[in-house]
């Protein structure tokens, strides 16, 4: 597998500029001769589709929701980072770069991260000019806040709905191009496979989710922006239909999958309340600016009402363990500490359910209820709607949940995968966040990739690939269509007696969360690697999918996605087993310091682990992209 990252030479601050000069251009008149497929309409996909169309390319854009505006990016709450340094508190491109590499526990590629930090400022300008209603100061300037433990205020936000507003901005740009007939939008259409001709990505096979029709679409290049795979855990903060199918199908066609075990567990989510639970809801990280996390010191107090537990009997464990950062330690650290507290028998929920308190009593006493309502009112309301409890008078109960996947398809500096012509953007690629993503950096990355990177780099590919015309009559399309159809047929024909959710839950909750979740060890991972194939085998014997493939069939859609999760989970566990170190969100119990902190092994694991498909039933091959750090000094993260 060719893992040449094509990082431009020269000093890091000049690489992107130099690269843009070196890239081949497609002249304006020729752009309209090229067609680009964009799969996904989230921040990454919508921004890419709109921008490519503005440049003159023909764009076909796909999403499985009924409208591009509903992509999962819409749910992002907290904010988007940029190195504007408007508050004059010492931020810079270099600092944002440095923080992102360090926050990712030194498992990301320096050159890509630096470019991301450089572009961050343009994103804010672009979005503001589209009419995104960012929060403002009274003087009319944009407001910033500090987020996720950053020591500068670099986060731009739009109340607690930043993702929504940024996505609606990108969506409006996309709709403008749809209206101008420069983009053809295919909503409620799911990509089932990637089609290669002469080793280049030349199109996709899709299913129309209304009619069930399987169709082929050819193009000169394919851009994948299909989001993350957190739903492999069944319960996560992702939307219900988020899935790995598009990326996994590309993997099976030869795209390397990098660092699949790097998943982020967000510390502040509403806990699981029962077996019927279908998803988990995030409570913004910003709550930790004022909320204090605790559990009772004594197990025996756990069933008491919190108000009956005096402060002296409470264990504010983050403040105790990390006096410098207290409740603001990074996500991975806060999540593990919550697990530790619960594992010590001090969960504040009964019936084997897990939770810790997030308490605003001190903040309300200090700043008054109104001030707190002003800051977090909408979040408090949301909590109340879901839990039925009033967080102004009783502490919230929270617990970590799967939130984001740093791993993804491997891409080079041009965001091209190991398959020529297949480009991957947003959460679906692996490029910028290493082993742990900082808060407010995913929105930045999605928009950087879509608005400001791919429009340049894809031109270079199109100008140099010279692959000639291909249409959907090509046998490669027919074969892929048939394979997709056969798989659906197989699913419908099993005729067992178990539902798809039964298997999804077993995979996600009983195997992945249990053995490849917040803490992992060799024994558990090996067990998971034994359990997954067994469960997969049962799936193909015992599932029942109702209806047919030539109609709306939500259960068939789901079964097809879960079938891929059942294969993909294995690669995650393999990756977690291979990585004999702890880094960011990947915590191996065998690799920790005396006081329970993550212990990296830079000598042996400072590389991106890129998995290569070798056939069904055959172990994938491991390829390595070594990470070299020229600018950021490798150091142990220390938040104590």
């Amino acid at each position: 597998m060719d893992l040449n990252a094509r990082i431009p030479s020269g000093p890091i601050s000049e690489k992107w500029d130099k690269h843009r000069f070196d890239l081949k251009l497609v002249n304006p008149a020729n752009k309209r001769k090229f067609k680009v497929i964009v799969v996904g309409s989230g921040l990454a996909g919508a921004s890419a589709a709109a921008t490519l169309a503005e440049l003159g390319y023909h764009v076909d854009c796909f999403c499985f929701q009924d409208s591009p505006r509903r992509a999962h990016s819409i749910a992002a709450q907290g904010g988007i980072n940029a190195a504007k340094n408007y508050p004059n508190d010492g931020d810079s491109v270099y600092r944002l770069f440095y923080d992102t590499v360090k926050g990712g526990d030194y498992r990301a590629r320096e050159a890509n991260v630096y470019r991301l930090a450089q572009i961050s400022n343009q994103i804010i300008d672009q979005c503001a000019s589209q009419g995104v209603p960012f929060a403002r100061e009274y003087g009319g300037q944009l407001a910033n806040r500090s987020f996720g433990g950053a020591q500068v205020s670099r986060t731009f936000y739009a109340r607690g709905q930043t993702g929504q507003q940024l996505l609606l901005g990108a969506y409006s740009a996309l709709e403008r191009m749809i209206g101008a007939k420069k983009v053809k939008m295919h909503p409620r259409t799911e990509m089932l496979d990637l089609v290669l001709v002469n080793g280049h990505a030349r199109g996709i096979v899709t299913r129309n989710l209304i009619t069930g029709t399987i169709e082929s679409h050819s193009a000169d290049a394919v851009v994948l922006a299909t989001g993350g795979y957190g739903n492999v855990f069944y319960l996560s903060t992702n939307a219900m239909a988020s899935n790995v199918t598009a990326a996994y199908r590309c993997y099976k066609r030869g795209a390397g999958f990098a660092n699949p075990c790097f998943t982020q567990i967000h510390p502040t989510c509403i806990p699981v309340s029962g077996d019927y639970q279908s998803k988990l809801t995030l409570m913004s990280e910003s709550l930790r600016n004022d909320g204090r996390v605790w559990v009772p010191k004594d197990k025996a107090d756990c069933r008491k009402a919190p108000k009956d537990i005096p402060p002296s009997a409470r264990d504010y464990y983050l403040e105790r363990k990390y006096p410098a950062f207290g409740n603001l330690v990074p996500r991975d650290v806060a999540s593990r500490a919550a697990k530790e507290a619960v594992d010590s028998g001090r969960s504040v929920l009964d019936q084997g359910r897990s939770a810790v308190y997030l308490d605003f009593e001190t903040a309300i006493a200090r700043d008054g209820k109104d001030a707190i309502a002003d800051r977090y009112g909408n979040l408090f309301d949301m909590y109340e709607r879901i839990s039925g409890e009033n967080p102004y008078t009783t502490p919230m109960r929270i617990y970590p949940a799967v939130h984001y996947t740093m791993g993804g398809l491997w891409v080079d500096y041009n965001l091209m995968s190991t398959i020529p012509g297949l480009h991957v953007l947003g959460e679906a690629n692996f490029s910028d966040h290493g082993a742990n993503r900082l808060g407010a950096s995913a929105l930045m990355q999605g928009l950087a990739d879509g608005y400001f990177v791919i429009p340049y780099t894809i031109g270079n590919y199109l100008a140099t690939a010279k692959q000639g015309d291909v249409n959907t009559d090509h046998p490669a399309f027919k074969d892929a269509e048939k394979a997709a159809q056969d798989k659906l047929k197989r699913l419908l024909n099993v005729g067992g007696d178990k539902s798809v959710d039964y298997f999804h839950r077993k995979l996600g909750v009983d195997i992945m969360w249990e053995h490849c979740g917040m803490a992992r060890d060799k024994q558990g991972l090996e067990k998971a690697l034994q359990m997954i194939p067994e469960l997969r085998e049962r799936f193909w014997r015992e599932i029942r999918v109702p209806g047919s493939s030539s109609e709306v069939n939500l259960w068939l859609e789901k079964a097809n996605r879960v079938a891929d999760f059942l294969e993909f989970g294995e690669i995650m566990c393999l990756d977690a087993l291979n990585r004999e170190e702890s880094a960011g969100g990947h915590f191996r119990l065998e690799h920790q310091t005396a006081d329970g902190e993550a212990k990296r092994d830079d000598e042996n694991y400072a590389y991106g682990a890129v998995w290569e498909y070798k056939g069904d039933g055959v172990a994938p091959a491991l390829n390595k992209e070594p990470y070299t750090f020229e600018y950021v000094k490798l150091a142990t993260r220390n938040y104590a």
Partner: protein
Amino acid sequence: MSDETMRITLHVWRQKGPNDRGSLQSYKTEANPHMSFLEMLDVLNEQLLSKNEDPIAFDHDCREGICGMCSMVINGRPHGPRNATTTCQLHMRSFKDGDEIYIEPWQAKAFPIIKDLMVDRSAFDRVIASGGYISVGTGGAPDANAIPIGKKQADEAFDYAACIGCGACVAACPNASAMLFVGAKVAHLSKFPQGQVERKGRALNMVAAMDTEGFGACTNHGECASACPKEIPLEAIMVLNREYARAQLSGGED
């Protein structure tokens, strides 16, 4: 927990496809107050699946009240009984043991039924494509702080921009008018200096597209705003009417 069990009778609109005749069908199920409304339906669907019956199709995705995908008329009210709450955010504690609950799809000419509770809302996208944007291409935007915008103005713009495009306003309106949805977008953009340039064309084109899509006229019932889960203010419609009148009077083109 068993003492919390709620026995519920559901009357659900079932319709195989756009051209089939639908009808209400009744189901008995059990729930508990901590479940979300959609989780209650998930549980019912699992039961239907195990009996080899066709599960109920409904749209949903984020289940956090933000994507705008869920859409059901519950006991005659779009998104159900709780103010400012989408169907996916509704919990069974809003109901009680023994309740009968009616669940129907959005009903509007511009939103044809696809199956059961799923409808086609692509008309909304086409209305946005007709002018619900500021025409700035990527690149070349001035520094974001170059154009100061007062906090009050930005907050007001946000109030309108919060629309999730769910269509409850249309479903609630006796005329199936989309004025609140369109008004929200026009009002949002009209609050910004950047939005001024295309002001007239935007109002004219979006209203024309709304008519073409088959949405009805507004006769000031106000049902839309009271059904809106994001509490988009009724003033959105006033802003739209004003912008439209102004554009017509001054001859349309910007």
